């Protein structure tokens, strides 16, 4: 595995995402909802960023646009210099397919496939994927690989989802409330898995949460409120998820 792929490039950390004046307006009938009102941000290679904010602050919208699930209404977002705002459905599908790993609050596993097959569903279409077994080993589920989702606990399901996300060796890992549906102890296990992936594989990781305590494990913490970035906080040292409590 090429762990140092994105880290020691040249002078200073490389910019993975850059947003400029990014806006998003949802039109709901006559009503216009301004979800993002002008976001200027950079995300650097290999860092772990936590997006914090109350519901409705725009953090999911931002993540969805970064992940190519949604398109911006205005402004610009680039991925490794490429303009995502101008990409069509075909390019966005390809972008998600080869570069992005997603982890969702409700896991979104395929119920008819076993754990390992849920990972394989991604590795089969990726460019240089891990072996599904290795991806499951990273999240500590090597012994549960032949279980169907209905036979796994919530935490285990979420770890399968993480294995699925990392198995394609993505350049970025986007996680939307990965612990939102889990109890605290299980949440810690999931966060440990994410932290390990970020540390060992050097994958740029963005985690959305409304749980302030999780912010301790990040390199940087971005606060959003009402569609705007309010503060950006840089942690001097990252806490281990095991030390987090909520």
């Amino acid at each position: 595995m090429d762990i140092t792929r994105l880290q020691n490039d040249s002078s200073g950390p490389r910019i993975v995402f850059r947003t400029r004046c990014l806006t998003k307006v949802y039109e709901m009938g006559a009503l216009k909802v301004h979800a993002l009102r002008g976001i200027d941000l950079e995300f650097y290679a290999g860092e772990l960023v936590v997006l914090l904010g109350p519901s409705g602050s725009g953090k999911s919208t931002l993540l969805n646009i970064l992940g190519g699930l949604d398109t911006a209404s205005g402004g610009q977002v680039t991925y490794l210099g490429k303009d995502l705002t101008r990409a069509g459905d075909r390019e966005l599908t390809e972008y998600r397919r080869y570069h992005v790993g997603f982890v969702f609050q409700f896991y979104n596993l395929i119920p008819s496939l076993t754990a390992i097959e849920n990972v394989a569903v991604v590795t089969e279409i990726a460019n240089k994927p891990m072996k599904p077994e290795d991806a499951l080993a990273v999240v500590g589920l090597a012994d549960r690989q032949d279980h169907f989702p209905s036979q796994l606990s919530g935490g285990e399901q979420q770890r399968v989802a993480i294995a699925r996300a990392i198995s394609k060796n993505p350049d970025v890992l986007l996680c939307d409330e990965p612990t939102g549906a889990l109890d605290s102890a299980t949440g810690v296990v999931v966060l440990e898995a994410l932290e390990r992936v970020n540390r060992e594989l050097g994958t740029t990781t963005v985690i959305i949460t409304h749980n302030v305590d999780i912010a301790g494990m990040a390199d940087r913490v971005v606060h959003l409120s009402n569609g705007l970035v309010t503060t950006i906080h840089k942690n001097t040292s990252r806490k281990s998820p095991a030390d987090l409590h909520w």
Partner: protein
Amino acid sequence: MKALDHKLWRDLWKMKGQALAICLVIASGVCTYVMLISTMQSLNVTRDMFYGDYGFSDVFAPLKRAPENVARRVTEIPGVSQVETRVVANVKLDVRGFPEPVNARLQSIPDDGKPVLNRLFIRRGRSVDPAKDNEVIVSEAFADAHRFSPGDSLGAVINGRWKTLVIVGIALSPEFVLQTRPGAISPDYKRYAILWMGRTPLGTAYNMKGAFNDLVVTLSPGARAEDVISGLDNLLERYGGLGAYSRENQISHRFLTEEFKQLQRSAQIFPVIFIAVAGFLLNVVISRTVSTQRDQIAALKAFGYDNLSIGIHYVKMVLLIVLIGVAIGIGAGIWLGRGLGRIYMEFYRFPYLMYELKPSVAITAGMISIFSALAGTLFSVRAASLLPPAEAMRPEPPARFRRTVLEHIGLGRVLSQPTRIILRNMERRPVKTMLTVTGISLSSAVMIAGMFSKDAVDFMVDVQFRLHHREDMSVTFVDPASKKALYELKRMRGVVYAEPFRSVPCRLRFGHRSYRTSVEGIEQGSRLYRLLDMSLQAIDVPRSGIILTDYLGSMLGIRGGDMLTVEVLEGNRPEIRVPVAGLVKQYIGLMGFMDLSELNKVMKEGNAISGAYLSVDEKYRPEIYRRLVEMPRVAGAVVRKDEIRNFYETQAEALLFFTFVASVLGGIIAFGVVYNSARISLAERSRELASLRVLGYTRGEISYIFLGELACLTLVSIPPGFVIGKGICIYVAKALESDLFRIPVIIGNGTYALAAAVVLVSACLSGLIVRHRLDHLDLVAVLKTKE
């Protein structure tokens, strides 16, 4: 309840596509039922009314010649109510501008123009003037075919003398609702006519002054036709009686009865299929609706709604869909019934068609649909109303999956994840998968059953006119003639080859069973008229003994080697006993066959023949027709090619109608089933599919997972559809089997192909509609909700 009714309408509107598909399937069932039953009943009512108003006779007795005073003795036969004597003759016509042989039945009407029985409905013109010997009334079908109007004239050879006849009227008779030449397979309005002439001129022409050669009677109430028939046969035997027969064996009446039987049979089969499919679809849709509305049911219960009102709510939903379908079906059924009635009116000549839909038919159709729909949905409605609120609040437990059989036997290695998803989904609900397959297969079955008559008829025609009959034309003599008559035909320019035949009317008896038909005498090594064994291979007529049509053999319960009694109904009326030498295959009519010289020998009649089969040079055909018209000995001629062409011309519209209706209905079932399964699995799996889209799967790739399952089900359903279709055909053929015809169960590759094509196209169409929805999955929304 008001709020619940609002919910009902909105829910229905939300599932309008699926509801419409089910409505259409129900409508198809109701429509076929209403169409077939109303057509049958309308024709029945029309027929009975026409028979009643115009005095259709009950018993018919053709004979050689009897003096008029015999009629009085007929009235003395117990059970006879009214009697009418007539003179009937077969004549050749010469129609200007139509250079083909035209045969006619010329029948007398009393000089006052008013028959007691079988009265004429004069459509145009007037009745004949008894003082004139050249006036005739012609049947409407024939007049229409040649665009005759009163005042036109045509040539006829009457008892060997050429005569110009003037048409004074155009009429319909209850005796000839279906105007078919005896022995023909379909009505031929161009080449067969019914003509009515005054009794005096016709009697004079045929030396029947004060005599008659045909008799019709009606029965007094409560009398049995068999008693009257045997009374008539006894009385008329010495006058050359040819065997009296009842209405049931009168050709026009008989064909009508068979047609009604066919309509009735179809009305039993097709609607049942549609209603069953609709019941299944409703079951699937309502179960799905109930399971997605678990939380709503729970909430309603929490507010205090009782089980009954929840149950009624879903029953209302079912009833609404069914009633809309029934309404559409009744409307379409009336429309198509009228169309079918018009097609039948081309065939069956009634003065009017009393189209009517009895309310009971509509009510029956509605009730059957409602009950089967409710039966189909009872389980899910009951489950919905009995769900405890607390349980209903919780989401349904996640679906359990297993490895498929294919994977267990080690094929898993080669399967991609999407393929695994397809297979496991199908295996997870085997009952649903099976029902879906059955539903789709019924659509091809319906089409095959609807179109099979065309293939069967093609095959029958092929056997009858290409294997059995191979002559260019057959010529019948007025009376049996000697072989000299054959040489006369052979000498005609253009006649390449000729073979004689003898046709003897008789009653065949074995034990207590009997059947009235004719025995055909044919020469050894006959080339133009061939007997076919059970595998349709040509065989020679045996030198001794009699060969019977297979169906006749089973009707009489007779087998090879048994002695058959042949009661000859002409000449000296000998009664002979001959051994049955074997059975032959024949789809049309029932007959016996004997070696010509053997038949002549038992008849003690020298070398008499009834006519000849000719093979002619195409170039000389018109000339031969002309010569045949002029030959006094020749009663009529039939051209094989004309018969085939006419058959297809008369059947074409009806066949096209049924093929069209069957394709549309088959398509509706296929569409209904595939579309509904697609919509439901889309609803059940949109989250999974959207997740895959998020993970980077393209639209094409998720369409494969989704539509692949439907494609699999559709493809798998085609072979069983063929089998079920063939089964229905076998049932129909068996049910319609009669002495008139036996329908072979022959289904052409084209029919199979068309059935499969309609199913595939309907499936693709519904696939495309659903695929459109698949392309617009909301990727963000599915990630935010828990299933």
